[in-house]
Structure formats: C-alpha cells, structure tokens
C-alpha cells in the first residue's frame, strides 16, 4: 500500500503544510544559532535545519522553537481536582480538561505550542499531569503529547485553605479531616510516601492505585511537580525529596527558591519560576501570604546550575506572556541563550518530551515561532506561529 502511494506523493506539489522558513537567525536551542539559516517543514515535522537555503515560503528576522509552559494553568478550576480526599494520585487531569476553552488559542497565538496540564492546587497530592499541544482539534487524541507526564502536588498554605477544624459543629464533611496548616500538609505528604513504602491500606483499590503512582515517582519514572512558593515550602519539598529519595522533583511557582542556593545545588531539584512582577512582590491574598521574587532570580539559578523553566501562568488571567517573562529574566542578567532554553528545551527535558519538542532539529515536531526582531526582547513581536507544520499565526497577514 505504502509502495503504491509513494510515487504519487512524490509527484504532488508541496503540501499546504510544507514550508521553508528563512530567518536572519535560526535559534535551534540544541546548538549554536545559525545566521542566515532556514528551517524546512514537511508533514508536520522539521525536515531540515541549516545555513543558506532558497525557495523560502516564509521569511522573518528570527525563528525559535515553539515555547513550552509547564504552568499554563488552563484548567477547570476546582472541578479539575478531587477534593474529597487530600491525596488523589491515581486521578488524572486529563479527565477534567476543557479543550474548548478560548485560553488555549490565546496561549498558542502568544507562541506557546506545548503545555503541561495539571489538576488545580486544592489537594496535597492532586493527581497526574499530561503534556499536550495548545492547538488542533479539541480532543485529547489530537493534542496529546504525553499522557502521564508528572504527578502534581502542593506544599504550603494553599492546599489547606478552606479546611477547618470542627469547633462549632460535628465533623461531618471531608474538609474537617484535611490539613489546616503547613505542618499538616507536610504530614499528609510524608504519610502518603510512608504508606506507599510500607504497602499500607492497599486493600482499598483507590489507595492501591494511588500507591502505584507514588511508586513510579519513587522509581524516577514520573517527575513530582509540587507547588512550593515560600522559602519554608521550598525547604519542606527538598527535605521530602531527600528523606524518600524522590529522583525527579520540580518546584513549581517557586517564588523564593533563590533564597536557598545550597539546598537547590545539593538536592538537584529543578525550578519553575512564576511571572515576574514590577516590584518583585507576590501577594497571595487567598491565604494571606506574601513573597518576593527579584528580577535576577533566574540569573542566579542559571549561575548555580539549577535547571529552571519560566512560566506565564496564563490561566491565572494575569495576561502575562511567556515571551515577556523571558525578556524580564534577561533584564535581571540572564543571557539570551539561557532565557530561550528556559522556555523551550529545559521544560521539555523536565517532562521527558524532548524527543518531540523543545529545539529545532530534524525529526522533531514542526512547532515554530517567527519573530520580527531578536527573540524574547521587549522590542520584538511574535509574527508567526506554526503548530505541527500548520500555520496558526500567519506572518504575511498585516
């Protein structure tokens, strides 16, 4: 069958989704930038990357890989996480996605082509996260990159918010047995891993299923991505990593990770930084906490050799764009190459999807961002986006 079709294909003119993009600079991320280079796209994949080239169908000042956001936060809010138990490792965010949300399209047009979807942070252990494309038909089958990419947890004040002790009434609802403090949250985390190692309570199929997921985390098959905003939460997460030997820990929304250089270097954790603010202050009115994120936090992580990704938390509705975060990090002293890596290849590696996305190499998905100037600069604009070879933002349209 294939043999029959092959000559036909060869005779056909280039497909609608076949492009040759010529750029003053091709930022491959995996290798050195190529001046006056090209990227050839065929059948949704990158066919070739090189110098020179001809017969360009699209032209631009710079081309980079599609951006990747590990904290995009497009979810169905409280409906994305099962709160009747404080740990729900067995449940997946894939069951609670809204792929019809207009926010995916908005993210895609801002250059984000791949994202991590996770349960919202109302549980201590919320469930499994998945990597998907931000565009395409609104079905999981069409967008899925990796179904079980990480386990999501939260350390700090947020997972205990809304829980209470039964002071004036009978302890009738599940909110009464959930943790109400940072101590309680840490205890739930430790108990989950302790019970897993001991095989406790596995007569209950739900607990057994939770433990099976936690074992994959302990074996290093699944990264554990935990929210850890404040210094004490960063410490707690790292203590847990060291106590239980969790191989792959990623601290998400780690506003104050920069305060703990020795712990970060010693433990080998990775970090996802939230958006920068104008004055560095981050307030969490929700739980009455405040934090500080200096503009040079990314530069520091880079110098310490801590793998880190930048994020825009688009779902939070702040309107922050991932490209702007990379620009802000450069203002804090981060070199361009490192800023680019923090929004492409590093997040891909942290979730184990670097074979498909994260850099411009032949054979990878043709997810590209086209710029009208040097990429990730406040003075540059994204003029084109390709998702798996499909032009979703056309640089030729004015």
């Amino acid at each position: 069958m294939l043999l029959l079709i092959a000559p036909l294909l060869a005779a056909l003119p280039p497909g609608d989704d076949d492009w040759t993009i010529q750029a003053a600079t091709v930022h491959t991320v995996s290798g050195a930038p190529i001046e006056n280079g090209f990227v050839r796209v065929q059948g949704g994949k990158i066919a070739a990357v090189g110098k020179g080239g001809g017969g360009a169908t699209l032209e631009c000042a710079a081309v980079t890989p599609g951006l990747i956001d590990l904290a995009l936060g497009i979810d169905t809010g409280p409906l994305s996480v099962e709160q009747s138990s404080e740990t729900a490792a067995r449940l997946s965010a894939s069951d609670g996605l809204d792929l019809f949300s207009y926010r995916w399209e908005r993210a895609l047009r801002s250059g984000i082509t791949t994202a991590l979807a996770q349960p919202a942070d109302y549980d201590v252990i919320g469930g499994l996260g998945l990597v998907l494309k931000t565009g395409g038909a609104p079905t999981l089958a069409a967008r899925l990159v990796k179904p079980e990419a990480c386990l999501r947890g939260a350390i700090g004040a947020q997972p205990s918010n809304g829980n209470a002790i039964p002071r004036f009434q009978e302890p009738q609802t599940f909110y009464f047995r959930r943790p109400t403090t940072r101590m309680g949250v840490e205890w739930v985390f430790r108990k989950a891993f302790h019970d897993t190692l001991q095989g406790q309570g596995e007569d209950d199929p739900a607990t057994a299923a939770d433990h099976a997921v936690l074992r994959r985390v302990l074996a290093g098959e699944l990264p554990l991505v935990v929210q850890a905003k404040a210094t004490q939460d960063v410490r707690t997460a790292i203590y847990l990593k060291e106590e239980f030997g969790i191989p792959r820990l990623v601290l998400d929304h780690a506003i104050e990770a920069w305060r703990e250089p020795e712990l970060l270097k010693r433990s080998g954790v990775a970090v996802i930084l939230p958006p920068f603010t104008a004055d560095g202050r981050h307030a969490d009115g929700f739980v009455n906490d405040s934090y500080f994120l200096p503009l040079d936090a990314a530069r520091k992580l880079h110098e310490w050799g801590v793998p880190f990704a930048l994020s825009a938390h688009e779902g939070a509705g702040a309107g922050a764009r991932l490209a702007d975060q990379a620009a802000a990090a450069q203002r804090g002293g981060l070199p361009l190459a490192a800023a680019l890596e923090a929004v492409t290849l590093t997040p891909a590696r942290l979730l184990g999807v670097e074979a498909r996305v994260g850099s411009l190499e032949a054979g990878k998905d043709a997810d590209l961002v086209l710029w009208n100037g040097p990429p990730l600069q406040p003075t540059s604009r994204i003029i084109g986006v390709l998702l798996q070879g499909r032009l979703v933002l056309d640089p030729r349209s004015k």
Partner: protein
Amino acid sequence: MSLALFVLAFAPGEPVAPREGVLQIQAAEIWTAGGERIQDGLLRIEDGRVRSVSTGKQSDPALPLVRHPGVVTAGLIGLRSQAGVGGELQEDTRSVLAEARAVHAFDPAHPDVARALAAGITALELAPAPGNVVGGLACVVKTSGGRVLTSEASLALSLTSAALGRSTGPSFFVFGAAEVPGEAQAQPDGGPEWSERTPRGNREPTSYAGALALLRRSFAEGQGPFARAKRGDLAVTIEAWDRHEVLRAVELARELGLAGAVRGAPLAGDPAVVQALKESKLGVIVGPYSAGQTRASLESVKTLAAAGVPVAFALGDPARSPEALRLSAARALRAGAPPAAVWKALTEDAAKLAGVGASLGTLAAGREADFVLWSGDPLDLQSRVVAVYVDGQRAWPAPGH
C-alpha cells in the same frame, strides 16, 4: 410485528364485532412515522392501541367514527418534565442512588399534568435532576388516566458541574473558596469557562475525574440498573452542558457500552461535538429554548439532524407553559432545522431517547393509541389542539364538555 401486519392486511373478510374501546378517526391528513403523511387517512383504534392506519374512506359503518378536517398525529412527548413534582427530583444525601425512582414524585392529579395534556402532550418523562452523578430512574407517564407506562425508562447520570462538589445540605459555616448552592448552570450556552459560581460543597465527588472514577466503579460493581444499562436493556441520559462535558459523556458511554442521550449540550452543534456524537449511541435532548437563546445553540438541531443524531426537546421547569415544547420546535425550525427532523424530535425521537420508542411516538399498528387532532400543521404555531386521545380514549376536552 411484521407477521402481525401481514395477518391484519390479508384478512379483510374477518368479521369484526363492534366492541368497547374501538374507534375510527378519519382525517384530512394523518402523520404516522418516519415523516410519512397519509392524505385522507383512516386511523383504527382497538383496546387502547393503534390497529391500523390506512388511506381511503373505507370506514366501517358499524364502528364509531370521528371525522376530523385537520391533521392527526401521535401525541407529543415532554422530556425532562418537572410537571407536578414540586422539586422532589433531587435527592441530595447521596451522589449515587441508582434505585431512586422519579415515579414516586409523580402526582397524576396535578394541574401541571392537565395543562400538558391540553397542549397536546400525551406522555411526560419525569427524571431525577442533574445534581447527582447517578440520579436514579426516570419514568414515563401518561398525562391522562394517571397511567405509568414504565417506572424504569432510563437511568439518569450527570457529568455537569451541578453534580460536582455539592453540599449535602445547608451548612451553618461556609467553608471553601466559593460555596454556592449547586444549581444547574444557568448559562444558556454552557458558559465559556468555570467561574466563581462553581460550587465547592462538601460531598464527593468534587471533580470530573472523581465523578468518572465513581461512575466506572459503580458500573463495574453495580447490579440492577448499572448492569442493565451495560447490557443495553436500559437507556441512560447523561447531563452534560459545556462542550468538553459532552465529549466526556460520549467517551464514558463508549467505554461502558451505554446507549441513550446527552441532555443539555446547548453547543452540541460544534463540529467536534457532532462528530463525537455521530460515532456514539447517544442522541441529544436540547432545550427548552428561551427567547434569548443564541443562534449557535438554536442551530444545533439542524446540525445534529444533518449528521443523523437523534434529537428531542426537554420541557423542563413546570413554571414554563407546556406550549414551550412547540415554541422550542418553532425556534429550531426558524434556525433552519428541517420540519421532518423537528417533528421527529417532538415525537418519535423523544420516545426513543426516553427509552419507550417501542410503545410511543408514532402511529403504527400495535403502538399505544395516544394521538392529537390538530386544526392544521402542528409545527405551525397558529394551529390549535382540537382534541387529545390517550390510550384510545378522548382525554381533552374531557368527554361531556
């Protein structure tokens, strides 16, 4: 069935003794089934069932005859009705209550039921409300005579936010980010996104993932209605509003081998949703349509019908006039749905999606003799109900009036 038709058709010489419960209706037009319209037709009723529908004027002079210059059709069916049940369809103490039966809330003497009858509705489906993941069993009842056609018509499931994170009752202290009594979403198009209005109550499940896990467990372990639904003996109705909820419902039905309908789904006309529904064993119960319904929502009947997906209209709220059923149909027509599809949605497909397609919804030999005499085309809002017959008896206007 075909054998019975054969026998009836080829036994013309058989003398039929005049009996009680025998009736002939001669009408300018009889709408039978599948869009067929018989001009100058004769409908013969015996013992509460349709005995035959034929053309011509060979009425039997020995039998009672009603001459009607207008149109005769099967009675309308009002799905998801709340007529006369007074808010008794939501059992909040349990998320899963497969054996709860809506029939126990049915008051046959309630004026809502009589109003439905006068509007040409001969059967109502009363179904557990969408506040529970598994609400229980819907029933189908007649609007005259108080007869319960079946108390186990379909199993009501819900995958909407209305069933997630509900409270078991009013709480003195309100915990959680945004606790709101879990009312069904009021957004006419399912709403673009979740909002602060999303309930965060204290009853399991609080999430889509939790609801799916609960349903999978219920169907895996469950006896009774769960086992029957999986075997295909019992239809399901899955409440799903937002487009992603509909896709989740379709996927669940495929996984568990369930057939029936999705209820709600104002944007079921979205191409991705239509495609998924087309490949499923589910129809869609839409409406009731209000005057403020968006065009995209109104056009879904047209789109679904074109894709061959069965559609029916919900009646909903008892405060709404039962005429809302024909109004919903008129709005779908105005948005471009073909009249044949809209008529099927009011009768044949409604019966099918309610799990009573073998008894109601068409005028064919052997079906229940529930029919309406209209002054003209029933899809024309200017046409009036002249008379309504239920189980072969004139029910409206009541005999003697």
